[in-house]
């Protein structure tokens, strides 16, 4: 098998930084996941990143994820064996050996969690994920559009409890797993969406882990060379700067268990005199400039600090921060009718249709 890249403990720094950018304001801080991956790699060895085409069609591939409230994840750290236990339990349930680990969500904390399992299990990790970004719900993966079932799924907590789910739809998996996660103390770790190599070749968003690493590297090198980090990311990502401004109001409320809200910005420098509004539901989902909808999910909207280029989450938005908003094109799979139905603005109860921003 051809190895794309071997990931050592120190490489996790760049991956976590890139993962936070693809987190689009949500997804949880990758810091804790990065430390766990580094511990695992130091103890069990580096992770071999492979292209999905290296796997035979009949290979068995399993994604892993952390689920729950980002704030809980920074406070109640995992026991440490939850991910590998969920992974092993699912393997036992499926009755055959798993051949490779997959990333469920390349944005936020879950850009790092698959490295923990890949290192502990000594299995290759596929370069790709099910979102190309972060989303709040478990059924919001490209796998869903290819008929892959989230179940059988194994959910493990820090106490040693585990739960096996068999459901009628991925939407039901989300509902039941969400309730279980809350009972487990607000965070849980899971293995789900088992699929064949052939399915994975169609269903995943490719190259997103190497993209995370490249983004982190770009920021690190820009800082070392004292060049504009934001310009460096824009170059790397086909991204567009959509606003530069200062937070002038943040309105947060909890709707249906999600952190919903709106942040308003007033422009500075080249955007002086303009205003900007971001709607978020854990992740940034819709951007309006001067009262006109500009970018919506599934395209990515991310906020970075002007000076450092470091990403800023919706949770840490505060009055007066001066930030740059970037738009990044979504993976084309999300732009199909099925994709828009799953993660378009209407699913999140915004009364607008998906507005294509990148039209080349």
């Amino acid at each position, binding site marked *: 098998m051809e190895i794309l890249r071997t990931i050592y403990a120190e490489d996790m720094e760049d991956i976590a930084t890139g993962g936070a950018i693809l987190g689009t304001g949500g997804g949880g801080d990758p810091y804790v996941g990065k*430390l766990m991956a580094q511990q695992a790699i130091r103890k069990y060895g580096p992770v071999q990143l492979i292209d999905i085409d290296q796997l035979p069609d009949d290979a068995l591939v399993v994604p892993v994820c952390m689920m729950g*409230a980002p704030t809980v994840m920074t406070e109640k750290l*995992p026991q*440490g064996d939850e991910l590998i236990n969920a992974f092993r339990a699912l393997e036992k349930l499926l009755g055959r050996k798993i051949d490779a680990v997959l990333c469920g969500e390349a944005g936020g904390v879950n850009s790092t969690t698959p490295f923990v399992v890949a290192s502990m299990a000594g299995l290759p990790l596929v370069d790709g994920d099910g979102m190309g970004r972060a989303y709040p719900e478990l059924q919001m993966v490209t796998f869903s559009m290819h008929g892959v079932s989230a179940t059988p799924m194994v959910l493990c907590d820090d106490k040693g409890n585990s739960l096996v789910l068999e459901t009628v739809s991925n939407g039901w998996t989300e509902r039941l797993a969400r309730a279980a996660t809350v009972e487990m103390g*607000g965070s849980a770790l899971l293995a789900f969406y088992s699929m064949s190599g052939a399915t994975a070749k169609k269903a995943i968003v490719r190259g997103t882990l190497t993209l995370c690493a490249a983004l982190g590297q770009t920021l690190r090198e820009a800082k070392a060379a004292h060049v504009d980090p934001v310009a460096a990311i824009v170059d790397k990502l086909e991204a567009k700067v959509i606003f530069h401004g200062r937070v002038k109001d943040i309105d947060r409320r909890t709707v249906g*268990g999600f952190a919903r809200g709106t942040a308003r910005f007033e422009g500075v420098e080249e955007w002086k005199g303009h205003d900007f509004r971001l709607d978020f539901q854990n992740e940034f989902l819709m951007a309006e400039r001067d009262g006109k909808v500009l970018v919506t999910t599934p395209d990515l909207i991310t906020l970075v*600090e002007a000076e450092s280029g470091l990403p800023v989450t919706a949770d840490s938005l*505060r009055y007066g921060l001066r930030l740059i908003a970037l738009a990044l094109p979504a993976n084309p799979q999300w732009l199909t009718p099925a994709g828009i139905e799953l993660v378009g603005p209407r699913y999140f109860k915004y009364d607008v249709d998906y507005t294509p921003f990148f039209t080349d």
Partner: protein
Amino acid sequence: MIRIGIDVGGTNTDAVIMDGTTVIAGVKAGTTADVMTGVVNALQKVLAASGLDASAVDVVMIGTTHFTNAVVQRRDLAQTAAVRLGLPATASLPPMVDWPEDLKQTIGNHGYLAHGGNEFDGRIISPLDEAELLGIAADIKAKGINSIAITSVFSPVSSDFEKQAGEIFAKALPGAHITLSSEIGRIGLLERENAAIMNACLRDLSAHVIEAFRKAITETGIKGRFYLTQNDGTLMDAAFAEKFPVLTFASGPTNSMRGAAFLSGVADAIVVDIGGTTSDVGSLHKGFPRQATVAVEVGGVRTNFRMPDVFSIGLGGGSHVVETDKGITVGPTSVGYRIVTEALIFGGTTLTTSDVIVAAGRAELGDRSKVAHLTADFIARTQDKITSMLEDCVERSRLSPDPLPVIVVGGGSILVDGPIGGLEVIKPNHFAVANAVGAAIAQVSGEVDRVYSLAEIGRDEALNDAKQRATDAAVAAGALRETVAIVDVEDVPLAYLPGNATRVRVKAVGELHVG
């Protein structure tokens, strides 16, 4: 009210004496190895300069970088046991997991995991196990460790386990210094635990340093109370500071920026504090320093303190000036406090920025004849280099194209002459002792960071409860109740959790109660 503000830095101990809002006198003295002698010298000097008697002084406020420097330089730190309550959760990442190896070794890397901890909603992860804690206490005793940091999962929501464990350790290890994480940090286990451990390892030093301050004040004949300034520019009393030295970590830049705002009367500006070795640049918003948004590291350790967003460059009054084939370089090396013997103008042999400024005729300092050999071209090119370094860092701290003024303070302010990058420069009176002024004008604060279930009590009631707790905390810290105002309210819904679980942070600030 007569108050004295003191800033104890690595090189200088500065003091100012103020009557209400008027600065009567400001002086500089050298910091001494025992701390106390330097403070006594500064106090005596400032009293003499003011013509006031020691008995007239109502209160003394001290800002110090002593504890930050101890961590950064890995010196005078005690062996410390880090006890975490949360098993079976949290075992994946033990205490000090992300610390620099040298610092971890300096304090012994004594991490212990035990049962305890709460869930986000207050449920118990596992009950406290007294026998387990007594076993840890026995091990701590056998190792001869006297400083303990206790961190329980979600202790900002419920601190009962930390308190109970603290009592068990206090009983088993009489005289041990015990730090509870819930008393100093906010939600974010590793960052709060890091702060608790750093605090615990500074407790021996803080007992020594606070005693030195106390003795210095008594020796000078001052009867008034004394306080230390903390990260956010507010005060804590000496007994509290001795227990929580970690809360002084960012007081240096905070005091110089607040002092700059006060002395200049300008509330929105960029502040450049030029010392002997470095220049710190930050921005002022409504009289307070702009806070950093990302996690701040101290000595390589991640914390979640609120600290000013300050950018430092290696440019000061003692910076080396060297001509190379690529042109003139200034800093980052410096003669530091040895400037008084090593700079050319003071009869030394090292060319510094101060020498060039004196040669240019911009300052009266030392013996100008010692720099008469510098050519006009060399002087001009060095000044251009200094100007471009200052322009660069001021530009980085600018938040808008609006023409904000630049306030220049600190002992190295002679390096600045005229506008920086087209921005007006203000050098207020007493600019050299702005830090000490910042200490003298500090206020008292109280802070609360809790998770509320809004489904049970409603948002208004939760906010009122938090405001009340913050106000009480400020009053307990010495604020005059009628002057206490809420300065910061923040509520963040905890995603994915039912019952509208919301994290509320409130900060209250008031004037110091004297009398």
